């Protein structure tokens, strides 16, 4: 029986990564996730790993590329403005076909923005973010425990596809403390060797890790090869949760922290006899399709609630098309919904039958 | 036939750096064309060449190899 420890989200994320076999962290301080770096700087030397503070997020993501190219499990974490700086590096990591994990604890934007929690990097995370044709599997935890669970998934998925994975959390998850259990423990020495990695070429031909190909036909081929990986991920890596969806007529679609709050509102709505339910995407990319297919016949309306000005709603529109009306409520910039606010929205929708 | 200066003509780009550093001026650009359309350099005078390796050490294409004629006694090697 694993022990339960009270931990702050940012620190639990770091411990989760270490327990998932990550021994290399390169990052730069940025609120609201500075505890990740502090924790890593204490813990990694204890397990024979390396914590290095890069001179910027730009340098940090490139250090991740290096350590990952050398065949290790490497990660970084940051928040919105820093993640913007990392986009070039992420595109390179994709093009080089090297695994890595990037955690974004989203804060209010755009620009310097604020330090309140937000969900306004959904587009950046799911529509590439950097240049070129690519996707990242994007995992969106809604509790600290789920963040811990998803850290192992993230490293496994990254290795499986040789592609970076993004964990999209927010400032609330980073800062809140919850009791967590670490249900896994990976010794990096037991991971299968990465024969494509660089460093120590004895007994094998040399390895080149690159993303350049000056012959357009070859680069096109490379792009289709990457796309095949993404197709496979679309088939195999979708994750979502259905909450009270068996007979739901008002279907909420929320992710991350908002989903957690919405569950409370839905429970209250149910007490009033309203048939509300929640589809909670856990992978924002690939976006779940099945729960929408299942829900469409019984659902009367969809309600998308997110802490931004309207991003995930576009993916919901793609799933629902014009079959049912979709309502939206957003809070960009760092403000947070209360359960009663979301309950109000549900009540209003119920009235407008 | 072995020579003191062996030039891999297909690597030569006619830059003339080797010509400019040869202390005895025995290198020159030939009239031949290589596969890339350059006139490769050639050794003009085997006798005058001192195997100093200046040409090989200047060549950006590592196109030049240099050898020295040495005496070898049967049964033993000495220079």
């Amino acid at each position, binding site marked *: 029986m694993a022990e339960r420890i009270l931990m702050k989200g940012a620190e639990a994320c770091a411990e989760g990564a270490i327990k998932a076999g990550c021994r290399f962290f390169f990052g730069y301080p940025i609120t609201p996730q500075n505890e990740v770096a502090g924790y890593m700087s204490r813990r990694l030397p204890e397990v024979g790993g390396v914590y290095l503070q890069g*001179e910027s997020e730009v340098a940090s993501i490139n250090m991740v*590329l*290096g350590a990952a190219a050398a065949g290790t499990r490497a990660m970084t974490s940051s928040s919105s403005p820093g993640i913007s700086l990392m986009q070039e590096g992420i595109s*390179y990591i994709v093009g*080089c076909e090297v695994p890595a994990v990037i955690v974004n604890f989203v804060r209010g934007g755009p620009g310097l923005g604020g330090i309140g929690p937000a969900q306004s990097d959904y587009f950046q995370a799911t529509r590439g973010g950097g240049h070129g044709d690519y996707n990242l599997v994007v995992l969106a935890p809604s509790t600290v425990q789920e963040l811990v669970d998803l850290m192992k998934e993230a490293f496994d998925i990254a290795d499986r596809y040789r592609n970076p994975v993004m964990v999209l959390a927010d400032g609330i998850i980073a800062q809140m403390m919850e009791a967590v259990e670490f249900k896994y423990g990976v010794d990096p020495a037991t991971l299968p060797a990465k024969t494509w990695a660089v460093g120590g070429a004895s007994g094998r031909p040399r390895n*080149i890790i690159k993303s350049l190909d000056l012959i357009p036909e070859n680069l096109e081929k490379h792009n289709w090869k990457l796309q095949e990986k993404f197709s496979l991920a679309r088939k195999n890596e979708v994750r979502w949760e259905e909450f009270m969806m068996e007979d739901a007529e008002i279907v909420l679609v929320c992710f991350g922290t908002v989903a957690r709050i919405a569950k409370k509102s839905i429970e209250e709505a149910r007490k009033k006899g309203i048939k509300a339910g929640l589809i909670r995407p856990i992978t924002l990319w690939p976006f779940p399709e099945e729960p929408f297919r299942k829900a469409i016949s019984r659902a009367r309306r969809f309600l998308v609630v997110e802490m931004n000005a309207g991003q995930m709603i576009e993916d919901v529109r793609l799933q629902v098309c014009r079959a049912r009306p979709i309502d939206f409520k957003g809070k960009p910039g760092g403000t947070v919904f209360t359960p009663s606010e979301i309950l109000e929205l549900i009540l209003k929708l119920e009235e407008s039958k | 036939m072995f020579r003191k200066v062996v030039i891999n003509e*297909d690597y030569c780009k006619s830059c003339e750096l080797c010509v400019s550093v040869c202390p005895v001026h025995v290198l020159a650009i030939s009239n031949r064309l290589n596969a890339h359309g350059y006139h490769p350099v050639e050794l003009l005078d085997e006798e005058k060449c001192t195997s100093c390796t200046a040409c090989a050490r200047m060549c*950006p294409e590592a196109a030049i190899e240099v*050898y020295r004629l*040495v005496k070898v006694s049967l049964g033993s090697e000495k220079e």
Partner: protein
Amino acid sequence: MSDLTYKPLYQRPKALTMVPTHYCPGCHHGIVHRLLAEVIDELGIQEKTVIMAPVGCSVLIYNYLDTDSVECAHGRAPAVATGIKRAKPGSIVITYQGDGDLAAIGTAEIVHAATRGERITTIFINNTNFGMTGGQMAPTTLIGQKTETTPYGRIPERNGYPIRVSEMLATLTGPAYVARVAVYNPANVAKARNAIKRAIQVQIEEKGFGFVEVLSTCPTNWGLTPVEAVKWLQENMIPVYPLGEFVGGKE
């Protein structure tokens, strides 16, 4: 009874592939690639070496040096090198960068790798312009020098002053070896080779960061023949960028 035979005095280094380079005739990249290969051969480190390819004319260095290699974003080679060296400390990690990569976009990365005393080696090719993109002004362009983006010559009031990277890095404590060399004649080629060897040795000996700045010609963008370019380098670049060992040289 004696016989005559040919003893090899100089042969193509083993660490060079057999691929002909795409560089312009007389480009000094070729000379420095060759020296790097010679040193790799001499130190016997071909299997341990990982070379970071920059963005610039030498982006394809991995086609010419027969070692592991990682291609880096513009300017980020020292950061990628850091990641590799920290993950695989037994590797010999070398970055090879030009003016734009190291002295423009990559200034933060090189300064911080140097100040961390990162056990990596950097070879910096200074030819006073951004070669690959057609000869634009670089941080190392000389005052008065005409380039694609300083058609009237580099004017301080408009375009500032050249940067002496070696001297700048030499003020930091992290570097174990900093030298500026040139390859414009065989004597200097020999000095450059020794400097490159020393810069790699300080990595092997775990003494700190090793750095060699190589003054080089760019005949095509300077509009000169390779032999004229060598003369231009001696007359114009050496007064601004003096040769020498700034850190870790013989006393």
